[in-house]
């Protein structure tokens, strides 16, 4: 199982002018881990697909960072 977001801690200088953002994140969506899309992948029901923004659960990626939005259904 892969993760949709990666986190890293940039260097924080004692002389930074603004309060530091100690943890930065970047997106690693599912397509990065699928070299070829396999045939016959499971699909969402049409209404759920519209809600998720994709037909395939394997390609679902939460809109920006769910931790920042407080989503529960990643």
């Amino acid at each position, binding site marked *: 199982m892969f993760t949709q977001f990666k986190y890293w801690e*940039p260097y924080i200088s004692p002389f930074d002018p603004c309060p530091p953002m100690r943890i930065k994140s970047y997106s690693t969506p599912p397509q990065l881990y699928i070299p070829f899309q396999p045939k016959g992948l499971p699909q969402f029901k049409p209404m759920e697909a519209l809600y998720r923004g994709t037909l395939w659960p394997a390609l679902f990626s939460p809109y920006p960072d769910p931790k920042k939005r407080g989503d529960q259904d990643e």
Partner: protein
Amino acid sequence: MWYYEKKLQYPVRVSQCNPMLAKFLIEQYGGADGELAAALRYLNQRYTIPDKVAGLLNDIGTEEFAHLEMIATMVYKLTKDATPEQMKEAGLGAHYADHDKALFFHNAAGAPFTATYFQAKGDPIADIYEDIAAEEKARATYQWLINMSDDPDINDGLKFLREREVVHSLRFREAAEILKEERDKKVFF
């Protein structure tokens, strides 16, 4: 900051008087996939990329400047002793009218260098993938240049540079894998 070593990364020799080759080589000087675009792209992206791969961008960006010097040396050697008549015959008449023998950052067709040749998207995956593409495009450009050149000494230098593009591409592909790696993933040996 940088320290400067007053020597080329790989020796540049030119065995034939062929100013027309300079017109083609300038593609790697001020072209979209040239060494200047590469150096500026990597050295600029390194600030906002995760620290695990920032050092790689620093090292490769620096090396691109060493390649820029090699291309500049080739162009300079090919044109420095050309008469205005020879420049005209080599298709460098327009260049001579604007710059005399001076080098200038434009591509083989004369379009001036622009920062729009590269991107800094801020998304580490997007940036590294652009870098891989840039290396492959530069490798292809070197191949086209080698195809057009029959100067064995120039080709020797171009083949060295072509090989470096291949190695840089591989290093960037490794960086992409590092960025995709799971944090706290168990590593088995």
